[in-house]
């Protein structure tokens, strides 16, 4: 297990290096930050001075190494746009995204698994078919459109839920949370549905097909032959086995939730890192973009590591320390 984790960590570090490089090099091409930072009245001299000051005229590799050095120390430089250290901005924005992502994940996983199990057990039932078909609609419309439609229905037409922002937040140390106020919770509803819907569908379909697969395994037949209760068979035997492949995918999906938050946050003006990223892209705010991508990758890598470790707890076959011959 240790070896496995070490290998994963090394791999992850490689991933981060590559992502960092890719991200960093991409930003060289998106646009010229200088233009945005100086107003209409800037002069050529100003441009040169600033370029020099930001180190933008140094060789590419030097800039990248500098960037990495900083990144390792949690220092991503200073936002060109807000003129504040990127790490501060990220710390400020991360809670919003993390809360949104958490709620979406919980929704996606809870409903995904519940519906998946249900549709697998009642494979040909009407309700199961209905859920399956409607879930397809969820993946057949782009996320941004779903968000806008939800706003249209629940904010504009019905006036039930807020159309933007986090509502009121409470500051606990460095963390601002919307979980503690009614308006904060209300504000979470639409964005988290928008964000979680797609992943929920994916998880649900995956759980369903894996579950169907597991349900026709011999050990399930044997469990039936032993007269075990359906509940025991479905949940203790089938679901647990289903989880082995499902967990990997859930792990990947959780990462995507954070990435897809870009869209949801844009639509709902949710003050998280996704919105920050889109702003940064529009403003060619290189440090913010680089930091965001690194952040996403770190989360991804972390989630995957956790998922891998989870395996060891679920699947005893992985715990063997014996060289496998057969």
């Amino acid at each position, binding site marked *: 297990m240790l070896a496995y984790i070490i290998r994963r960590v090394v*791999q992850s570090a*490689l*991933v981060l290096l*590559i*992502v960092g490089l*890719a*991200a960093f*090099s*991409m*930003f*060289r*091409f*998106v646009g010229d930050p200088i233009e945005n930072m100086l107003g209409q009245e800037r002069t050529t001299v100003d441009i040169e001075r600033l370029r020099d000051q930001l180190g933008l005229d140094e060789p590419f590799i030097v800039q990248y190494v500098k960037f990495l050095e900083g990144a390792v120390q949690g220092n991503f430089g200073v936002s060109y746009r807000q003129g504040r250290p990127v790490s501060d901005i990220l710390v400020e924005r991360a809670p919003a995204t993390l809360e949104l992502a958490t709620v979406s994940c919980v929704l996606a996983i809870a409903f995904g698994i519940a519906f998946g199990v249900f549709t697998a057990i009642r494979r040909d039932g009407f309700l199961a078919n209905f859920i*399956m*078909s409607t879930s*397809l*609609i969820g*993946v*057949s*419309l*782009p*996320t*941004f*459109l779903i968000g*806008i439609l939800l706003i*249209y229905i629940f904010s*504009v037409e019905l006036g039930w839920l807020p159309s933007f922002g986090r509502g009121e937040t409470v500051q606990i140390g460095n963390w601002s949370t919307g979980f503690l106020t009614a308006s904060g919770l209300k504000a979470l509803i639409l964005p988290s549905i928008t964000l979680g819907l797609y992943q929920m569908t994916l998880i649900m379909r995956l759980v369903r*097909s894996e579950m*169907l*697969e597991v349900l*026709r395994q011999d050990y399930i037949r044997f469990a039936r032959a032993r007269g075990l209760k359906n509940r025991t068979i479905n949940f203790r035997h089938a679901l647990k086995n289903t989880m082995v492949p499902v967990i990997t995918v859930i792990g*990947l999906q959780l*990462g*995507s939730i*954070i*990435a*897809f938050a*870009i*869209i949801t946050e*844009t639509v709902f003006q949710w003050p998280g890192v996704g919105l920050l990223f*889109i702003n940064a*892209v529009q403003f060619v705010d290189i440090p913010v973009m680089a930091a965001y*991508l690194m952040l*996403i*990758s770190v989360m*991804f*890598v972390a989630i*995957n590591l956790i998922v891998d470790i989870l395996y060891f707890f679920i699947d005893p076959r992985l715990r063997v320390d014996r060289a496998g011959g057969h």
Partner: protein
Amino acid sequence: MNDTLDKIPQRSRLRMFLDSDIYYAFRRSPVAVVSTVVVSILILAAVFAPLIAPTNPFNPATLNLMNGFTGPMAPNAFTGESFLLGTDDQGRDVFSTILYGMRVSLFVGVAAVLFAMVLGITLGLVSGYVGGWTETIIMRVADVQLTFPSILIAMLIFGIAKGVTPVEYRDQMAIWVLILAIGLSDWVQFARVVRGATLVEKRKEYVEAARLIGRTPCAIMLRHILPNVLSPVLVIATISLALAIIAEATLSFLGVGAPATQPSLGTLIRIGQGYLFSGEWWILLFPALTLLTLALSVNLLGDWLRDALNPRLR
């Protein structure tokens, strides 16, 4: 007896297909039949758009801006012209734009999936069959790829491509970059599935038999293994197609999609969503419905195929 040999009736592939279980199951599944019909109609409509569409919305010189915002089947206040599904903000006939937009969307989707497929199948076959370091490297690359969300990959590629292509090619480039971006973020699942299937097939004895008579690995992979791993690929390809079409739409919302002068369905929806509150619902509704119908029926078909082609679920 040799002279009779030539007369042996051979069942054609078509006949075989018509007799097959798949086709039987297909005929008995209304969902599958309906979605196939819908997809075919949409694809035909897209392919023959220049013949069907009343106007060519991609030719700006033919547009009359004054026709803008005409409601469906209602005459325009200035020009008196009327349009089946109305016009958009540029005075383009929505019906024609949808047909042409679907062309773009389908082209991007199909090409991206084909690209992902070719790449994924090749890498999957090679890594599954050859194994060893080759496999390790390919699959690690796939892992890295997987750890990176597809829209970020797409934005990344878009950014880089935009930086490196000369300005005058940017317009043509946009489409190809979309294809590359979506394709690149999609090959992994093909590779994984093909690799998995290859690992299974490779152990089957017909492969041994072919090795025994000295067939080259290349011939074995292409002639023996490939045909046998295609059915899961088909399923993924179908579902990927729906995903690719949606991905294209999402990317155009984020501003990295098809150009506004040659809008895809996604671009149309992005434009249309700006008119959701202002009463020009048709600019959003019709493209969105088309996208929904297209993606939904492709998805349904893929879903059905997955169940039908999975021997263990039958």
